[in-house]
């Protein structure tokens, strides 16, 4: 039924090996550079700034509705700490705007 294509296997294999190497090497090499305070500060900020960079261009592309949905998600998340609820409301706003506006 669903045939496995050789090219797709190569892609999945390379990404899998690469991703695992990144995960393990980060941990194994960490003792070499965590002694530097600057590096620690840098690492502390990296996850959040990565996420911001990952999502912000997508929000902008979505336009005004994207911004409104994002504000709702942020406020609900801040108040309730409920990821699912926040996501649901955000998706709902985008869906409603696409269907009714």
């Amino acid at each position, binding site marked *: 039924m669903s045939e496995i294509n050789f090219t797709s296997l190569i892609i999945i*294999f390379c990404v899998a090996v690469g*991703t695992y190497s990144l995960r393990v090497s980060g941990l194994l090499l960490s003792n070499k550079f965590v002694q530097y305070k600057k590096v620690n500060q*840098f690492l502390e*900020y990296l996850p959040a700034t990565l*996420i911001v960079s*990952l999502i912000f261009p997508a929000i902008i592309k979505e336009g005004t509705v994207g911004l409104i949905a994002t504000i709702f998600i*942020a406020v609900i998340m801040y108040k309730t700490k409920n990821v699912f609820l926040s996501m649901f409301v955000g998706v709902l706003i985008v869906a409603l705007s696409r269907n009714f506006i």
Partner: protein
Amino acid sequence: MSMNNDLRNGFIANMPIGLSVFTYGSVLGILCVQKGVTLHELIFMNLFIFAGSAQFVMVDMWTSSLDIIGIITAALMINLRYFLIGASLHPLFINSSKTEKFKYMHLVADENWAVTIDKAKRQNITPLFLFGGGLCLLFVWSLGTTGGFLLGEFIKNPADYGLDFAFVAIFTALCVNMYQGGKDILPWMIAALFSVTCEYLFPGKIYIIAGALAGSLSALYLNKEEET
């Protein structure tokens, strides 16, 4: 004994966020059908790559003639952060053997990492807590993506339901959770500005790394000002 408890506690602690992971996993499953990714390919990605955002990007780039280099580069670029996530786990693995490190690191994702870091601030935990969370996520991720794949046969246009926005929505929520106070605002704004500018100027996914580097480096400078 407390070791086994850590595995179980980690699993349980990730269940609330698991609900969201399940949901956006099902979105990915639906997209797979639209893009012609087979169920086997999806399952291989889940098991061997196990990285939601990279899988989203891969599926997004999936076409009948696959751009091998392009897809691999984009996926690994997004996953570059795992190097830093791995490095940030240094204190948790301080008493662990190499074997344990090799065993537990594969199932590290953004969500169980965030839950573990948060927990470690308040309580003494072992890497098994992280691994238990990883098992929970692998379970819900597999369930969600496979379910979405099966459902995908019936959903002709996922964008009508705003499903393509689910990924952005969940990461926005996770980001809010990481907010630690006013000192974050400026570095985050710099990251946002850089990512949007680079996305406009350069092809591919380089804007993610560019924004993150700009934001984090600016934080170093701004914090230095704070200290003096």
